């Protein structure tokens, strides 16, 4: 009797252990942060959406975007949580750098919308990072044995690696900022060149036209029926 009752509970316990082990293994194996940086061309009146999955609550989602070229270098942004509630809504923004705390498990959507342009395509550079919490002890027991050093050294290395990662991320952001500005400057210079050319042409045309009009007017003053008025 006792045996029959213990069997189902054994199975369920085993199942629970397997699922927990699989879940924790996947957490342990995943890196500290997963970032994907892409550059996408949003056509006129197009709405392009990209998604990130938060499997555990309280994960941090970092979202960076910058319009690299097109029109007045701005775009509409819409970020929604798994319940379709709006977390962030921006209109005509040039660039942004945000960090959200993902309170719910599910699919978070990041949408770019180019409704304001009739024909201008916008090139948007964006990066979505899913950051895990920094774990208190990030080494398993075997790795601690393998490292063959005192615990203090490993901790110090861990700390400096973490700082290095942070500093490199800042350098990366700064570079992206410069790239965006540089693209804008380039676009301004091209526009200046084109303006100089066309305005010079139009002005020359106007000078010639005005000269001809003046000559014509003076001729009409001194000829025909108006001779008496001179």
């Amino acid at each position, binding site marked *: 009797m006792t045996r029959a009752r213990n069997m189902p509970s054994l199975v369920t316990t085993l199942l629970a252990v397997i699922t927990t082990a699989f*879940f924790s293994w996947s957490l342990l194996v995943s890196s500290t942060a997963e970032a994907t940086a892409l550059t996408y061309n949003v056509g006129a009146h197009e709405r392009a*959406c990209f998604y990130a999955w938060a499997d555990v609550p309280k994960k941090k989602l970092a979202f960076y975007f910058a319009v690299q070229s097109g029109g007045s270098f701005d775009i509409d942004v819409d970020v929604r949580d798994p319940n379709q509630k709006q977390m962030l809504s921006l209109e005509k923004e040039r660039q942004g750098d945000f960090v959200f705390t993902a309170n719910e498990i599910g699919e978070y959507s990041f949408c770019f919308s180019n409704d304001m342009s009739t024909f201008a395509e916008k090139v948007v550079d964006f990066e979505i990072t899913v950051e895990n919490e920094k774990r208190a002890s990030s080494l398993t027991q075997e790795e601690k044995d393998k490292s063959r050093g005192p615990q203090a050294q490993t901790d110090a290395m861990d700390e400096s690696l973490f700082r290095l990662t942070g500093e490199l991320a800042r350098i990366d952001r700064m570079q992206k900022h410069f790239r965006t500005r540089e693209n804008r400057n380039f676009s301004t210079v091209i526009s200046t060149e084109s303006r100089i050319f066309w305005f*010079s042409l139009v002005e020359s045309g106007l000078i010639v036209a005005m000269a001809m009009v003046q000559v014509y007017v003076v001729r009409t003053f001194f000829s025909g029926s108006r001779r008496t008025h001179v």
Partner: protein
Amino acid sequence: MAINVTRWSICLLVLLSILPSVFGLYFYLEGSEQKCFTEELPKETMVTGEYTAEEWSEEHNKFIHNKEVGIEVIVDELPSGNRIHSQKLSPKGQFKFTSAESGQHAICIFTSTAGWFSSTKIRLNLDLAIRDIMDDATEASEGTLSELAQRVRDLNHKVGDIRREQSYLRDHEREFRDKSEATNGHTVTWTIVQLVVLAITCAWQMRHLRGFFEARKMI
């Protein structure tokens, strides 16, 4: 108690099965829709893209891994429109290509199995890396890496990305400087052209009017 544990673990299993296969950025492709990404690549650089494609299945009411799905990747050099890479792939894997020239490249991904009217919805996880991932695989096979070594490797890759971005910025800035100086030169050129046109028009006007008045015996 046992029933609660069972329910909880079954829920967890169901949740895990509907999760995207790779945690990261993903997007949806409807039918034969194409999604294109642009990348500025230096000359002869290898780019590796890892992806996982899942198809929406009506009977299971979730995204499943379907071996019949074919994903096609095409890479074009943007200014010239040359197609430098075209490949048909299985639903999960990686693709690699090497850029021939430095410049903008468009990497487009779409399903090759969908016909004109099919309404398959594909969820595509994508990760693009501008380096050769083969290096990681060969190093990893020499033994399981400790997490610290993995982090140092990630830092090395990041430094490589920063260096590449720096050299792109340097080349681009050189182009920008040339264009600025050309524009400056053109300002002077076109102003001189305008002055010449003005002078010619003045001379013509004076000559024409003098001829006109002399004909009328007013001068």
